């Protein structure tokens, strides 16, 4: 076997024999290990740079201090409450957007009239930066839960609608004909042919939409500033608690990683028929 372990279309895990006697160096060179080693190296360099260059912690605190601040905030600073509040806002709005977005998308895709009615509104609202709606929504809804759910929903709604319409319109007409031939009703065709064939596209919409929801909720929290990760971030910045600012950023980055990985996992599970 060649020592080349690059993962890719050429690597075949089924045929590659296990190599227990591989050296430590070779194992460190594996892409998966390498990606974590790179992270560790950067953090270590950061820590050393702050110590050696004696940087002011107000500008750049040491990573070790940030971790300590992070634990402190979770233990006694109520960061968990903020995290939960933010998560509820993001996912609450997101799931409302998903349900209504897919429903409207299907309706638009199968009815020319519904599409004609909805088209211009979507064309106008989709490219509009949703943060610009924050002032108006505060006037209408105040700064409480309804406001947060609405802003989160607005973020995810349009990408989900647009990708649902796209996915269904791209469905192979031969499959629709085959389903009709086998006796499927219009509803059955929607449920058993159009929706499954649109799932990859809907998922692309979910990825985009959830990302926008996260941005919008955190931005709205920074503006409204009471509870939530965005509020914590803004308040810590106001009082120059740079370690806390970094700590909240770490929580947000981790949230991003978790969301992405969960999406990947669901994507693989739903799309297993696409791979051999």
């Amino acid at each position: 076997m060649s020592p080349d372990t690059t993962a890719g279309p050429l690597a075949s895990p089924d045929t590659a024999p296990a190599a227990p006697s591989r050296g430590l160096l070779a194992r460190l060179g594996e892409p998966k290990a390498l990606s974590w080693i790179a992270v560790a190296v950067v953090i270590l360099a950061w820590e050393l740079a702050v110590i050696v260059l004696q940087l002011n912690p107000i500008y750049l605190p040491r990573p070790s201090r940030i971790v300590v601040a992070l634990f402190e905030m979770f233990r006694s600073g109520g960061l968990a409450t903020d995290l939960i509040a933010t998560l509820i806002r993001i996912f609450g709005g997101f799931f409302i957007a998903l349900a209504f977005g897919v429903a409207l998308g299907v309706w638009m895709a199968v009815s020319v009239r519904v599409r004609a009615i909805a088209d211009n509104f979507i064309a106008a609202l989709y490219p509009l930066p949703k943060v610009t709606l924050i002032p108006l929504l505060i006037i209408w809804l105040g700064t409480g839960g309804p406001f947060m759910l609405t802003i989160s929903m607005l973020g995810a709604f349009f990408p989900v609608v647009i990708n649902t319409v796209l996915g269904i319109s791209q469905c192979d007409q031969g499959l629709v004909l085959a389903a009709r031939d086998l006796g499927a009703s219009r509803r059955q065709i929607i449920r058993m042919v159009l929706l499954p064939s649109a799932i990859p596209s809907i998922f692309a919409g979910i990825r985009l939409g959830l990302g926008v929801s996260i941005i919008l909720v955190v931005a709205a929290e920074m503006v409204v500033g009471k509870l939530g990760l965005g509020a914590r971030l803004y308040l810590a910045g106001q009082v120059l608690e740079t370690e806390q600012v970094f700590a909240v950023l770490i929580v947000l980055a981790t949230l991003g990683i978790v969301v992405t990985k969960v999406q990947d996992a669901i994507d693989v599970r739903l799309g297993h028929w696409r791979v051999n």
Partner: protein
Amino acid sequence: MSPVPSPAPAAARTATSATTIAVEAVGLTFPSKSGEPTVALGEVSCRFAPGKVTAIIGPSGCGKSTLLQIVRGFLAPTRGTLRFLLLGGDGATDAAATPRDVAAPHMATVWQAFNLFPWRTVIDNVAFGLEVAGVPKAERLARARKALAAVDLGGFEQKYPRQLSGGMRQRVGIARALVMEPEVLLLDEPFGALDAQTRLVLQEQLATLVERSGTTAILVTHSIEEAILLADTILVMTARPGRIAAEIHDDLPHPRSMATTHDPRFAALFDRIYGLLRQEVIRAMATEGGDA
């Protein structure tokens, strides 16, 4: 004997239909934005007899697939009528000679592009029609498994279409249609997307299956050989606008296999059909050149 394994004797016919499909002066013309309307199908009159296999053969663009879609009810003709008739006399003891209009028989189609649902496993593809009809899960899976065994795909139930070869995919397509026990089986260039060798084997297999099921079958094809091997009647169509140029009776003995192609009667039929088609194909090429 056919080299294809046949698990049941040829006598075990299941869904026998008594309905004759009568196509009476049927034509289809699409209006087009650029003035000249498109004639998808000229004027066609023909009958598809119950329990018989009828092949429709003709040059590209003559409207043979259109005719199939009209029979299926997916396209409405702009001229003429499509009728489903119960004929008296023939075979029946009481010779009530007047034909009676009846409801459309139950049909199922095998498609050139297979049209399998890529997100469904092989068995779930075959069970699709039973599922939408509300057949309970255990029963529909059992029937789908049987249909798959009939096309020699036992053991492939849990695969996805993408994991199968073209020939296997079309066997899934055939099983998916046959599991519905249709009174009329519509075959829209079923082997058009397959390589020549796979095609030969599947033609033989389909001939056996259709014969055994006793369904009425309509086969649209480009292949003269396929038409002769599978059909009882062969309709040769003209170039666009498509009409029926000839109706040829094919009484080669059953069961038919590749050996049938060595029969001198096969050669005679082939030459006759080729003679008719040749002029039409040349005519089609000439008009197509003019169109483009």
